[in-house]
């Protein structure tokens, strides 16, 4: 954008016309319209608000978030943080938010993997694979998610009871109480190893960046993986060894009614996760397929002419280009998965909607309860959008 390319006539701003108070003036019309619309919407909102205030007064419903500090008294089946019914509503809701995040994050990762696989399978040369994937996508997308969740939950309840639990692998028990797995007894050494692992990732990233910069300078490719292994695997193991290498496994065992010990994946969580992942994967598969098809045929041919194998073409040439088409619709699928996780309420997984729902039912604080639900989802949606927009901008084609 050097100065010479700009026609000097355009550099001057057009002269400002004086504002005339007349309907013929576009700006006046614009202002009047805006005042009218804002006024109308404002008065409707004011009317609704005044009704609400009046109704709350008449029904003697106290407003405000004071109830958050009261004792909740509601049982919650699974939580990531310590909780029992004597804790406050605030903590109960926090458990709900964490449960929502737990299903959303795991769901997004799994749905992306499954969806990408199916999207690629739909383009397979094998007729059976292509047709089965197409059938899967069509059926999954044409049935209401709620129906699918109810279906999965009914199926999972059909597993045998804890005393007849299936044991596919030693120490893993599959029953209608969920999947019980051995768990590591967590100690400080493990936390330290985790920290070392994160540090390793950061260091690897820095090293890779430097290696790339050097490659740009002298054209010599440098191997990154030995350093990566050393930093990401060696560092945590070393830390763990130094701290005494504690290694105690908590094996699940049937005691009384239930398995004790180990970690558990409940049927409610599993049903919700399976339902969300299979459903969203159907949509992601279509996005991936469209993305791959959008890459020019010539790119395939050129890559094959260079002697790359099919898998390498897909991984190195096609996918990076397809990503530009894939990312924006992928974002809305991630958002949909997160919002759809609210259907948990129908199958007894206690996410934020389920807990806020019970809370507003017990306290009568309908407005606050719904405001909390909306605020939580808006912030999650906003975070996902921001992250994906950042990622999208990063991979976007840099054009001159």
């Amino acid at each position, binding site marked *: 954008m050097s100065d010479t390319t700009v026609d000097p006539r355009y550099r001057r701003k057009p002269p400002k016309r004086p504002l005339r108070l007349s309907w013929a003036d576009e700006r006046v019309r614009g202002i009047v319209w805006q005042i009218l619309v804002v006024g109308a919407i404002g*008065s409707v909102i004011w009317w609704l608000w005044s009704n609400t205030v009046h109704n709350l007064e008449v029904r003697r419903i106290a407003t405000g978030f004071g109830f958050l500090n009261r004792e909740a008294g509601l049982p919650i089946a699974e939580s990531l943080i310590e909780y029992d019914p004597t804790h406050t509503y605030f903590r109960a809701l926090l458990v709900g938010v964490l449960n929502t995040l737990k299903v959303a994050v795991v769901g997004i990762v799994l749905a992306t993997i499954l969806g990408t696989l199916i999207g690629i399978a739909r383009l397979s040369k094998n007729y059976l694979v292509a047709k089965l994937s197409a059938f899967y996508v069509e059926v999954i997308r044409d049935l209401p998610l709620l129906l699918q969740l109810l279906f999965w*939950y009914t199926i999972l309840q059909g597993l045998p009871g804890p005393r007849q639990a299936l044991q596919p692998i030693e120490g893993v028990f599959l029953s209608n109480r969920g999947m019980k797995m051995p768990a590591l007894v967590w100690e400080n050494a493990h936390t330290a190893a985790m920290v070392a692992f994160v540090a390793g990732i950061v260091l690897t990233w820095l090293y890779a960046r430097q290696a790339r910069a050097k490659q740009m300078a002298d054209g010599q490719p440098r191997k990154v993986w030995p350093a990566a292994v050393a930093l990401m695997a060696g560092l945590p193991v070393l830390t763990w060894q130094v701290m005494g290498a504690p290694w105690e496994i908590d094996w699940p065992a049937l005691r009384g009614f239930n398995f*004790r010990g180990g970690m558990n994946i409940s049927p409610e969580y599993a049903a919700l996760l399976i339902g969300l992942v299979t459903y969203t994967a159907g949509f992601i598969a279509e996005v991936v397929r469209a993305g791959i098809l959008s890459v020019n045929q010539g790119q395939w041919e050129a890559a094959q002419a260079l002697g790359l194998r099919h898998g390498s073409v897909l991984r190195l040439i096609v996918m990076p280009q397809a990503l530009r088409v894939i990312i924006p619709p992928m974002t809305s699928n991630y958002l949909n998965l997160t919002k759809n996780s609210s259907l948990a309420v*129908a199958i*007894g997984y206690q996410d934020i909607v389920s807990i806020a729902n*019970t809370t507003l039912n017990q306290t009568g604080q309908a407005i606050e309860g719904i405001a909390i639900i909306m605020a939580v989802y808006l912030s999650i949606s906003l975070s996902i959008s921001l992250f994906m927009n950042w990622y999208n901008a990063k991979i976007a084609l840099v054009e001159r």
Partner: protein
Amino acid sequence: MTQTSRSTFLRAIGAALIAGAVSAPALAQQPAAGGSSPTVDAIRARGTLICGVNTGLAGFAQPDSQGVWRGFDVDYCRAVAIALFNDPDKVRFVPTTAQNRFTALQSGEVDMLSRNTTWTLSRDTSLGFDFTGINFYDGQGFMVKASLGVRSARELNGATICVQPGTTTEQNLTDWARASRIQFQPVVIERLEEVVNAYLSGRCDAYTTDVSGLAATRAVQARPADHVILPEVISKEPLGPLVRHGDQRFADLVRWVHFGLITAEELAITSQNIGQAANDARPDVQRLIGRSGDLGRMLGVDNAFMVNIVSRLGNYGQIFERNLVPIGIQRGPNALWTTAGGLQYAPPFR
């Protein structure tokens, strides 16, 4: 003034009027007139009673294969409709969930709620309702599979327990567990049918809800003997119809329809013999059927309203027999106090 600017001015006025019209209804509100019953007036003007019921609870409220609502709670709605219109079909049933039932009543979407709702102090006061009586005494209990070998709720330590959220049931369960120092793993499912399925499939060791609900679930199983209802009853659940606070005349009507049904059973007046009740010399019977006294008119309805109700629906015992006994609920505490030493008791119908 130019032509264009005048039209601008006119449009602005028009817009102001529109904006005014939007907010006008707020001013048009007037408090209901005292004295008469605004609810009854509204029901009569509308021509039907609107009654909030459960979305589907066997024996209490559930549509049959032809879509006709049937059940114990439903019959109470019909009884009030008969009192007002002498027609059991002049009532609309609005299915309500545990969550939106109170809002529906508060906002006037329904005239009365007959939806197995527990009478508690806070619902009576801070939610602004009037409970008009207790037509079903219940209590919360536990059911387990007989194969577990559990004989008492105290043995349930460590068990997985199925419970429906958003009701008093859930809070009773946690209160009880704390009081008796029992650890349990909850499974919290909203829909009744889902929660029952979860119990039957073995997802939970025990299922807790009102004993009547447990009995109903047990009775319909292929082998009821496979399920045991534990002896402990951990709460009091007095269920009954409720109306909005502030319209005492309508509350009186609903209350006395209930007492009328019990009085009819106390006097052994049934749908079969009510035709001959006119010949019954007992003054109580004469008052009940409206041949002496002005009791119906005092309530603002036809003097023979109990004749109309009992001839179509039967007395309290008959309603109970028809709806609840087939699904395995016995009279138990809901027997008459006067004859069987139960809790159902009507103040004098005079």
